[in-house]
């Protein structure tokens, strides 16, 4: 049992250290500044850990290493005259890491699949938001459901399909096998739907009055209005295409000549291929290769930072 009625003598007090307002004010200001210093210090530490791997990658790629030595030093800097720029020439001569042809593979696949995804997404979103037909909502529902299913459920069967269709050998066959299962991305369609839906119907009616048909309206009005979203979609597709590993690796099991650069990068340092005195064992060259694979996307990100961050933040798309 506790007190049944509130004591009339009770005074609600504010927790103020002492009664001097000016002193309290000064103390609060000091505490606030100390708090801010802590926050910035914390963020700096986080930033350090976020950037450390990037710094280490670049730093290591510029250190000297002799064949046969597995390790390099752990210094945090290299004097300018000791920088091993030559690593970036040597990396082009590494066995099984033929950068020009890997880039051809990757750029072809990423380029074609991005273009393909762009048109498929635009067409699908146009149909879902602008056109009316029977079964539209049912199809959209079906699309959304496929989004919920983990892609690992498809890979075994898709591999069998590719094998049966004889798509695991030959340049264009492998290119096709690499990109086909990921051309449709329901997330992108969903994202574009949201943008298309915001375009007022009056614009469509106005375009009809001006004698524009649906096709012209799509390309002359809807696509330009939705261009920020489309840029986001294209960027996300490029990123995920460039970084894809599991499936591209699976389809090139038979013929690594047509592998994506990311897949080849992992095999670069695959010790199961054989430990020896090959230049593949050099950490510095591995890191030079890693820089070459990583840098294009980082530049892309820094240039299109806003589009990428907004897109990811809004739709929560995972790469």
């Amino acid at each position, binding site marked *: *049992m*506790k007190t*049944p009625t509130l004591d009339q003598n009770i005074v*609600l*007090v504010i927790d103020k250290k002492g009664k001097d307002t000016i002193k309290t004010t000064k103390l609060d200001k000091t505490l606030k500044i100390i708090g801010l210093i802590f926050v910035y210090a914390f963020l700096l530490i986080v930033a350090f850990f976020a950037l450390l791997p990037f710094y280490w990658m670049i730093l290591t790629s510029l250190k000297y290493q002799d064949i046969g030595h597995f390790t390099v030093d752990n210094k945090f800097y290299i004097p300018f005259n000791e920088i091993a720029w030559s690593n970036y020439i040597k990396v082009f001569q590494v066995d099984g890491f033929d950068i020009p042809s890997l880039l051809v593979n990757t750029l072809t696949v990423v380029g074609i699949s991005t273009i393909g995804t762009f048109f498929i997404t635009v067409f699908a979103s146009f149909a879902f938001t602008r056109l009316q037909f029977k079964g539209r909502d049912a199809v959209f529902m079906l699309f959304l459901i496929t989004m919920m299913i983990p892609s690992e459920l498809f890979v075994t069967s898709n591999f069998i399909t590719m094998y049966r269709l004889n798509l695991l050998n030959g340049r264009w066959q492998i290119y096709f096998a690499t990109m086909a299962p990921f051309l449709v991305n329901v997330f992108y369609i969903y994202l574009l739907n949201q943008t298309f839906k915001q375009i007022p119907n009056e614009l469509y009616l106005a375009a009809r009055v001006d004698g524009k048909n649906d096709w012209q309206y799509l390309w002359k009005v809807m696509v330009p209005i939705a261009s920020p979203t489309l840029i986001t979609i294209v960027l996300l597709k490029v990123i995920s295409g460039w970084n894809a590993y599991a499936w591209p690796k699976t389809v090139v099991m038979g013929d690594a000549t047509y592998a994506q650069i990311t897949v080849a990068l992992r095999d670069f340092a695959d010790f199961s291929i054989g430990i020896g005195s090959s230049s593949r064992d050099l950490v510095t060259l591995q890191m030079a290769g890693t820089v070459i694979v990583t840098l294009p996307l980082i530049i892309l990100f820094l240039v299109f930072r806003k589009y990428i961050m907004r897109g990811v933040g809004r739709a929560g798309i995972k790469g």
Partner: protein
Amino acid sequence: MEIRLENINKIFKGDKKKGVEDTIAVSNLNIKVNNGELAGLLGPSGCGKSTTLYMIAGLKEPSSGNIFFDKEDVTHLVPEKRGIGLVFQNYALYPHMSVYKNIAFPLTNLKVLTFKQSIKVKTLELLISLLDNDKYLEIKDLINSSTLDSKKINKDLALRNLINKYHISPSFAKTLFSLDYSSKENINDVIIKAKEDINKEKEKLSNKGFSIDNEYYLLDQDNKRIEEKRKLSKDEIDILVRDVAKLVQIEEQLDKKPKELSGGQQQRVAIARALVKKPRVLLLDEPLSNLDARLRIKTREEIRRIQKETGITTIFVTHDQEEAMSICDDIFVMNNGKLMQEGKPIEVYKDPKNLFVAKFLGTPPINVFKGEFKDNAIFVDNEKILDNVTLTNEYEDKSSLEVYVAIRPEGFIFEDNNETLGLSLKVNEISLSGKEQTLICSHNQRLSEQIKIVIDGDNPISIKEYRFKIKPNKIHLFDLKTEERIYFKDISK
């Protein structure tokens, strides 16, 4: 508590790189709100009234100047240490908490300064006093009558009834409910047991060197009460929450979530949350703007009632002059960050110091014409509307001057004759509302969008031109340049 603002300036820094200039939100503001008053900060949007309120709350810091609560300089004090209650424009009720929790939330942060009490003795004594002398029958009846439609006693209802009737805590109500009222012997046993417990407790305390005074406070060896600073107990919070809920009349809604309430009820919850911690000042930011017209009138009366009942110094911000005029003790009219005029609402209305205040107060708004003062008379479009007057103060020596002539809508008299004094207006529309009718008229020298005049509903008016006589005290003159008031006086006598 008295609130004083001295030479307050607030400048929002711009961004020179982006070409955004500094904005002066409040400039050289001096305001004094007396203890226990309801003051209204009034002005159009962007006039700096909300900024002023936020500076009083401590959410914004003045660029210069000082704010005093009584003699305490709180200019740079953080809001949490000012002891204020603030009702936000859109209430800012926590949507994930029930109404009860919303109101209780501020209390969970507060401490109380009080003297140590023997709660056990106090509770037992209260129990005895409620049961003794056959008073338990009252409780028995109350519990037995706490049924819904069936004959079975509803426990929740019984508890609520007990709490409301005896003003007790939920846990104490549970104790009362759990007693066996079937026979007098049982109750007597409870009383005897309670008395024994009291003696035991007193003994225990005296062993520790304490005694108890007649208000159950612990006394030390020098017979002094012992001070303590502590958090509020759940029961104390409960009582405070229910008290304030009763004050704003939302006792029935306590278990609901804010979104289940109407706008008016949410408003009350917001006020309750601001009041529950017994603040030194209550601040209301556009409290009625989210309500519909009917609720607005009802709620503003409510605010007035609550303010009078609690006697708490209150400042409320509004752009609606009618709202401010109807409930405030004092109004402060602001424009462009400056104080235009202050005073009792009716005085400000009757005696506006400048054209802005004249135009801002009153519905329908004042009618403004371009006119002239010459030959000791006031003219609008060469029609003499008032004669035998002379300008006063700094305009005393002027014999002729172009001026703004502002006439309140109720300043027109309908007399169907051609007197020498009057103003001809073409009536375009008539809207009759009971005993009054509002005429919408046109005039080629008007400066306001429309001329609206209000006259007695019995006057036979049709759509045509009339000549109206003007009540002299409803005419205000203003300087063309400074828009300041020009006073004049009658010289006919």
